[in-house]
């Protein structure tokens, strides 16, 4: 350690013009979001979650299961599939947020951030932003993969853009679900547990991969009112794919899938955001 020179904080602190500038909240959020993206890049398993896995799902369902599933009105299953697979990925946005927060709480990173003069909410904002950006990658990959296997958005350019807009709106809502999960659950392992026992089935009891009409009794009702279904069907209708708008004798939710999905977006944000923030505050202060 003989090479260590004397770090003299107080002496150096006297240097003129070295008073920290009043920082903007946005730059704090961005610094923390950038960290989240670097984390993703350096964890091969997380990177695989957002790259290999979505591609694998598209290929598996398009070629392995797809042949056995009949699409209403006799459409092409590959066209039907994409809305569902986009919807499932978007619902899972909350998983990344919850994992990140639970990990940061466990290893002391949140304490370190809180001992710094950063804007209130910058840590949450940073995680949220990183995860919105993180969902772009799988969506782009899946869209490209879908195009390769024969999916085409047949709607107008405006409708297609609207479809992607709907994805981001829902993804933003799911961030708050993720903050809530990450604040209530004590560890990344608990987050994984809840995700695979609650969230995963929830995305399957829906029109994600099969038309809701094929489901029996209660499951069919759940699927019809499950926002995963309306998100999937809303995307199908905006992309002009089969399985979009339900016929007049269908449930209201799936006759107006885009509207119903937006109601969920507003509802989730209105309920989860304040709850998530208060639970998060409680989880980090004691």
């Amino acid at each position: 350690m003989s090479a260590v020179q004397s770090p003299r904080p107080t002496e150096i602190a006297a240097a003129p013009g070295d008073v920290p500038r009043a920082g903007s909240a946005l730059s704090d959020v961005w610094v923390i979001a950038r960290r989240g993206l670097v984390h993703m890049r350096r964890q091969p398993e997380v990177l695989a979650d957002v790259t290999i896995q979505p591609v694998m799902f598209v290929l598996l369902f398009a070629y392995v299961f797809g042949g056995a599933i009949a699409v209403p009105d006799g459409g092409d299953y590959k066209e039907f599939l994409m809305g569902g697979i986009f919807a499932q990925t978007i619902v899972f946005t909350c998983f990344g947020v919850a994992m990140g927060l639970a990990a940061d709480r466990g290893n002391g990173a949140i304490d370190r951030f809180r001992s710094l003069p950063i804007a209130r909410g910058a840590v949450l904002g940073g995680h949220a932003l990183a995860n919105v950006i993180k969902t772009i990658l799988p969506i782009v990959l899946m869209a490209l993969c879908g195009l390769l296997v024969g999916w085409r958005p047949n709607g107008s350019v405006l409708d297609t853009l609207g479809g992607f807009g709907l994805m981001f709106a829902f993804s933003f809502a799911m961030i708050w679900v993720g903050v809530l999960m990450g604040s209530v659950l004590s560890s990344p392992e608990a987050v994984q547990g809840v995700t695979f026992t609650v969230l995963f089935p929830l995305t399957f009891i829906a029109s994600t991969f099969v038309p809701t009409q094929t489901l029996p009794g209660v499951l069919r009702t759940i699927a019809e009112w499950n926002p995963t279904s309306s998100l999937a069907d809303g995307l199908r209708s905006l992309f002009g794919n089969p399985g979009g708008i339900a016929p007049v004798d269908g449930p209201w939710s799936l006759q107006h899938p885009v509207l119903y999905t937006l109601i969920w977006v507003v509802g989730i944000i209105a309920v989860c955001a304040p709850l998530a923030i208060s639970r998060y505050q409680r989880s980090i202060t004691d």
Partner: protein
Amino acid sequence: MPGMTPPAIRATGLVKRYGETTALGGVDLEVPTGSVCGVLGPNGAGKTTAVRILTTLSSATSGTAEVAGFDVATQSTEVRRRIGLAAQDATVDGLLTGRENLVMIGELHHLGRRRARARADELLGQFTLVDARDRLAKDYSGGMRRRLDLAATLVARPDVLFLDEPTTGLDPRARNDLWDVLDRLVDGGSTLLLTTQYLEEADRLAKEIVVIDHGLVIARGDARSLKRQIGGDQLEVIPVRREDLPAVAMLVERVSGHEAIVDEGARRVTAHSSSGVGAIAELALALRGEAIEVEDLGLHQPSLDDVFLTLTGKPAEPVADAAGEPAIEEPAR
């Protein structure tokens, strides 16, 4: 100008309760600007709780605290601008490189990208981490992580530094290295509050030592006065033959002027001694005079156990006491 500047840290009657458990039972603390305060205590004594309140991470149930002249409860952002905190488990970001860690902290202190980078490079040099700057921090050794953590606390040139058990878990060599770094910090005139379980560490780094146990301050003063309370160093003799123990005990009592404690099992005689190295010379002569063969003869600094045994009559280890009441654990974070 003693007395002119307000103290860097002033805490009055800090109480922290978690439900039924009292982690801090009313702690007063005053650390003058430019001085070093060592908070000494066993696991679960309330050290981390006190640090968390003083660094705005936790709020006190009652009592007030000011750091660098600002109230920790009502002016937390002002406090955060002026402090550096190295938490107990070196919370560096394992998935970032050493340099990225420091740059990120600099940016969060609003130094701006360019100055944050310059400051990071400066600190990497000071803490001999230049060669490791582009390696991920998770691949660092324990000592390197601590140095990086310490560097991170210095990024914004804080007025007051809080180091929570800075050397716990380090091997002796890494501990010595870190002590050298801390020595230089102290020489540079930093105000520093460090918690430790080691009297040796508090003694080496801090002039003022506050001993806490079960959330209460049980002693305070400089190392010398604390040691006086304990009875100075420990004289220790291990004779070759067990049957010499009574004779050795007599000689030890005569030389040290304190009661000798005989440990039959370890074949060891110990006693407090306030006469320094002279006691060893005197005792060695006396032992030779009686033709007693000795395996080991030494003078040891009192350990934390000695401090606690003397001050509380109980050992320092947070084992369940006789009543079966579990020791208070510090809250997991």
